[in-house]
């Protein structure tokens, strides 16, 4: 099945309708990979607002398979008995493909079939499994959304302090947030978050580089500087339709300026939205920790800034 999918991608042909259960067409899936605190909620909110698009908010299917494959049992990849063993990779990727398409069709019947609608899948926290998902669904489109790792870590440091929006989120789920390293050992927290960035963005980039289908790299900083222009570039690169006036309205609706002031600031989900804000938020030692851990990705994605 995966081989067939590859042939279709190479020939730019479409999958025959009904190829998959539920009639969900893999080419109508647009994956947003990266990591948390890169603006993926903002980006997917803008895209989900446009007519003809639906939004799947963090299914975590990438985490489901990626965590075991890359982390917990990565040493067993050559073991024939291991369920995600490399010898049977094509087989289990086919199952992953069916898993995703069946699940998408069940949740978003309006996207399935010949309607020509698209599904935006916000999956930054499942990015560890991005290479597997894109190998299983080569016809899908991919947005690699990145942000300076120092700003990402600074944002997470703020989010995990006492009494912030992450605690509110857990409380809504009936749980109290346990004490965080962000309070007790902030430097250790920073190191952990930098490693997470490398894991998530590293694997998202691997998927992006290997993907032979339609794809686009988006920087949060560009999205902040020129939201409409960057959004138009995304639709153009992914060859997906939009009506420009409608896009402009959605961009305006979800602009930073339109977020109520009382919902913005330290400890809130909408914090600063300020590229380079890490200079105020991190200690020099913490910035050095991030640059040390994520140096390779930082130099590749932010070559000018990496001279700091």
């Amino acid at each position, binding site marked *: 099945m995966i081989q067939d999918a590859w042939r279709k991608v190479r020939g730019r042909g479409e999958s025959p309708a009904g190829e998959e*259960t539920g009639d969900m067409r893999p080419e109508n899936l647009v994956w947003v990979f990266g990591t948390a605190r890169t603006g993926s909620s903002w980006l997917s909110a803008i895209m989900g607002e446009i007519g003809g698009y639906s939004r*799947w*908010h*963090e*299914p*975590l*299917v990438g985490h*489901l*398979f990626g*965590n*075991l494959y890359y982390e*917990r*049992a990565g*040493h*067993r990849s050559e073991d*024939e*008995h*291991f*369920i*995600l063993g490399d010898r*049977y990779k094509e*087989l*289990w990727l*086919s*199952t992953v493909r*069916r*898993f995703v398409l*069946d*699940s998408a069709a*069940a*949740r978003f019947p309006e996207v399935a079939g010949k309607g020509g609608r698209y599904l935006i899948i916000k999956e930054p926290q499942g990015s560890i499994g991005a290479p597997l998902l894109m190998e299983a669904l080569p016809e899908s489109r991919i947005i690699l959304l990145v942000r300076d790792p120092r700003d990402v870590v600074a944002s997470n440091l703020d989010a995990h302090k006492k009494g912030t929006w992450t605690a509110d989120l*857990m409380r809504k*789920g009936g*749980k109290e947030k346990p004490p965080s390293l962000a309070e007790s050992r902030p430097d250790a927290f920073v190191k952990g978050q930098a490693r997470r960035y490398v894991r998530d963005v590293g694997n998202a980039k691997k998927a992006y580089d290997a993907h032979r289908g339609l794809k686009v790299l988006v920087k949060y900083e560009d999205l902040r500087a020129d939201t409409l222009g960057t959004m138009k570039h995304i639709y153009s690169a992914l060859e997906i339709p939009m009506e420009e006036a409608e896009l402009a309205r959605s961009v305006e609706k979800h602009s930073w300026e339109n977020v109520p002031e009382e919902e913005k600031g330290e400890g809130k989900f909408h914090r600063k939205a300020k590229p380079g804000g890490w200079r105020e938020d991190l200690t020099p030692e913490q910035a050095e920790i991030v640059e040390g851990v994520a140096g390779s990705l930082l130099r590749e994605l932010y070559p000018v800034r990496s001279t700091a």
Partner: protein
Amino acid sequence: MPVFRYPTVSGVTRRVRAALGLGAGVTRGALPEPTSADGRSAGSLAPENMIWIFGTGRTGSTWLAAMMEEPEGHDVWFEPRVGTVFDPQRFQRQGGKHFILASQYKDVWLRSIRNFILDGANARFPELAGEDGGYLAVKEPGGSVGAGLIMEAMPESGMVLLIRDPRDVVASWLDATRKGGWQTRRRGEGGRRAESLAETNPNAFVRRHADAYLQHVGSARRAYEAHEGRKVVVRYEDLRADTLGTMKRMYGELDVPVEEARLAKVVEKHSWENIPEVEKGQGKFYRKATPEAWREDLTRRQVKTVERITAPLLEEFYPTDPTEQEG
């Protein structure tokens, strides 16, 4: 030749389906819809011929699996870790409808889990395919955290809940993970971290492994309770005391036909006594095989730690002898 309970595979299938039909929609929801990979078509492994072994590491699952692999037409899937993929505890915080394993869409993803398992089994064990095909034991102690979902996706399969006194399990891990222990050596060879908490902070190590026991065996126990198909509890201690008798009881409960004389030979072949002496002892995979050796291996404080953490399971499976209780 004496045999015990020789039902045909199709007979077993009929009975299990009938039993499941009674429970379907009451406690477990509908059986996943058949798909091309549901194992019903000719050339596929019958799901009812799969026997899942859950519990935790160091409970004798390798020994049990080695014996289950021996009969003609039987094979063992050695630690696929499918249960770890679908470990519900990893996603405790994800309760929304968008989550891939959201309860609202359970019928969809249970079918996917079923396909995932059957596709994997059929690819690896094609010789067991067909209605008259053989049996596949799935040794999955390390994937016990996902036992509940697996058994829900595979209600026709049989299940073995393999348990051992948690104090002996922890003592065995402590030995395996110390410097020079088999687990430490294996991790070193695999390029993984070789340093061990067992050396640096044995009490913390004991606490962590007691927690893991509770998580793994607790999950397997709940799956066992919920499973309405064929199932059996096997205690390592019973397996050691009367291996042949326990194996016969296990196969009997699972309705799996095995020739008794052949089984006796298998038991003999894999007996503790037949393991070369050089392969046994401290720091080795085959260590003591002595129930209650924890009395020699753990400190008093460590014993208390394990007993406190695993109390619900310990009380159920290893009730304290009243004469041993402290005043």
